[in-house]
């Protein structure tokens, strides 16, 4: 168990380093933005007379040296103070906190679904290598790779919501229906189908290709020949010996791509009016609400770190050697 503790300690140090860098980057971005932050804030508040700007400058310590400002900024972020959105007249943290659950629900479901389906399809393609189903999966993966996810989302909603009317086209729940308990959960689930599938589709394709390539590689190794020589059945060899080893690089890549998945939620939530952080990012872009945008940058980075820890746990689950080896 010492190995696992060490692994987590290492992860935590790394996560802390990443967070500090992002906080500093945020601070620099605010200062690098064209125009003085006090003027920007005054503009957001809708007033720009000289006195008000001077007052803001003093209030936020913008007349102090840059290093002192950075220290104050970091101190505030550590306490969970991410600034104030004048557009929405609320602290940034409150706005983000309210939107976080919807985004977590969407991205986590899509992440697990894409991983599960991707591995399944890739394994199927590897077993069927050379047959038409293998080619079909390869072509599907190529197409998914080339299609912008927001467009996939639009087209799926055109087909399944507008034309066929099977699923709701947008939103998180049926507004005004007043569902409770299980009905509410089912209602949210129905609304989730299109955004989750759209987001998962792209990554599923990536993982399918990777699983296929990885399985073909593992299959040629000696221990697989040994298993075959022992007389094990083909199904047992493919699942227990080949897939279990082939899946490791897939999970590594899934961890690396978690950031892109979280970023992709901006597009998906915009298309499906999903009331999460991504949709908030789109609104913040429209309103040029930089405080909110930078807060989103920080929160999504934290999400990526959490996803990485999740992949580490998956890794340890599949390959018990990890605990000792690292």
């Amino acid at each position, binding site marked *: 168990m010492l190995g696992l503790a060490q692994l987590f300690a290492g992860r935590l140090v790394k996560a802390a380093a990443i967070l500090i860098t992002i906080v500093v980057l945020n601070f620099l971005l605010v200062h690098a933005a064209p125009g003085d932050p006090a003027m920007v804030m005054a503009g957001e508040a809708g007033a720009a007379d000289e006195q008000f700007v001077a007052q803001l400058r003093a209030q936020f310590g913008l007349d102090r040296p840059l290093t002192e400002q950075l220290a104050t900024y970091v101190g505030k972020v550590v306490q969970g103070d991410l600034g104030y959105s004048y557009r929405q007249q609320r602290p940034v943290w409150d706005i983000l906190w309210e939107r976080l659950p919807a985004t977590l629900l969407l991205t986590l479901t899509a992440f697990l679904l894409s991983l599960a389906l991707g591995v399944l399809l890739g394994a199927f393609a590897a077993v069927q290598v050379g047959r038409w189903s293998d080619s079909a999966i390869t072509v599907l993966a190529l197409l998914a790779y*080339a299609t912008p996810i927001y467009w996939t989302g639009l087209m799926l909603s055109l087909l399944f919501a507008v034309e066929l009317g099977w699923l709701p086209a947008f939103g998180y729940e049926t507004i005004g229906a007043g569902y409770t308990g299980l009905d509410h959960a089912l209602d949210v689930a129905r609304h989730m189908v299109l955004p989750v599938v759209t987001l998962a589709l792209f990554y599923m394709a990536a993982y399918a290709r990777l699983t296929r390539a990885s399985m073909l590689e593992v299959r040629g190794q000696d221990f697989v020949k040994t298993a075959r020589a022992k007389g094990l059945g083909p199904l047992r060899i493919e699942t227990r010996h080949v897939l279990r080893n082939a899946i490791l690089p897939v999970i590594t890549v899934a961890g690396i791509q978690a950031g892109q998945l979280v970023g992709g939620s*901006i*597009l998906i939530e915009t298309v499906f009016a999903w009331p999460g952080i991504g949709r908030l*990012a789109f609104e913040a872009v429209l309103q040029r609400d*930089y405080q909110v945008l930078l807060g989103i940058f920080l929160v999504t980075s934290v999400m990526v770190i959490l996803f990485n820890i999740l992949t580490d746990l998956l890794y340890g689950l599949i390959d018990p050697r990890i605990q000792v080896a690292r």
Partner: protein
Amino acid sequence: MTNRDFWRGFARNKGAVLGLLLLLAVMALAAFADILFPGDPWEMATAPFQPPLSGDALLGSDMLGRDIAAGIAHGARVSLVIGLISTAVALLIGVTLGAVAGFHGGWVDDAVMRFTELFQTIPNFVLAVVLVAIFTPSLTTIVIAIAVVSWPPLARLARAEFLSLRSREFVQAAVTTGQSNLTIILRQILPNSLSPIIVSASLMVATAILLESSLSFLGLGDPNAMSWGYMVGAARTMIRQAWWMSFFPGIAIVLTVLSLNLVGEGLNDALNPKLARSRG
């Protein structure tokens, strides 16, 4: 490797040949956009909400009567130019950092790789959105934002190549003959590590085009340049009434990105023939 070997390797991959033809078609469309569709693609050309194949608009018109086909042709330019330039900038950043890390090794390598890893963890699309929004959308800010978020894989690749070539005899020979580090990096190692870098770069052009289209879909495109992502984004709310407005620009993106991916795979097969054969 001779030219003929290269083309033979490339042509063995049927998909790559198809991709190359597609890519040439998109390039021709971009080059001849002014002749095929003269005039400003932002100007009203026909009645609004014309469905495809009706009147004088082959692919229909949008809510302001702009010709969708003209927008696609002019948008091809923006996509290809942004894709190519931002990849070039990303190559410059990534290969430089990777080369320095791989060549020097030790603490320089450590520091550069930590930095690279950090950039890989940051949700890169969010960073691109933040950068373009704060520095106001324009062709320059978009190119820089895309380059800033896409260099890390190139740096890792270049580092690995440099690290393995660094200890080879011909490099050692160059060191003993007293060549400067810069000369060794540029004249000895770089030419020998080009093929994997070229393959990654060609795939990166495709990713850059997708990124640009996503940014302009969110309204973060250059306001003076017609682009495919913008066309889809602007028509998004009208999909119930007029599907063609967002359908055709999306198809243009898919075909262009697909062609680049196929060409990239073909390049891979042609430049690393051993790998291609072993993959079966």
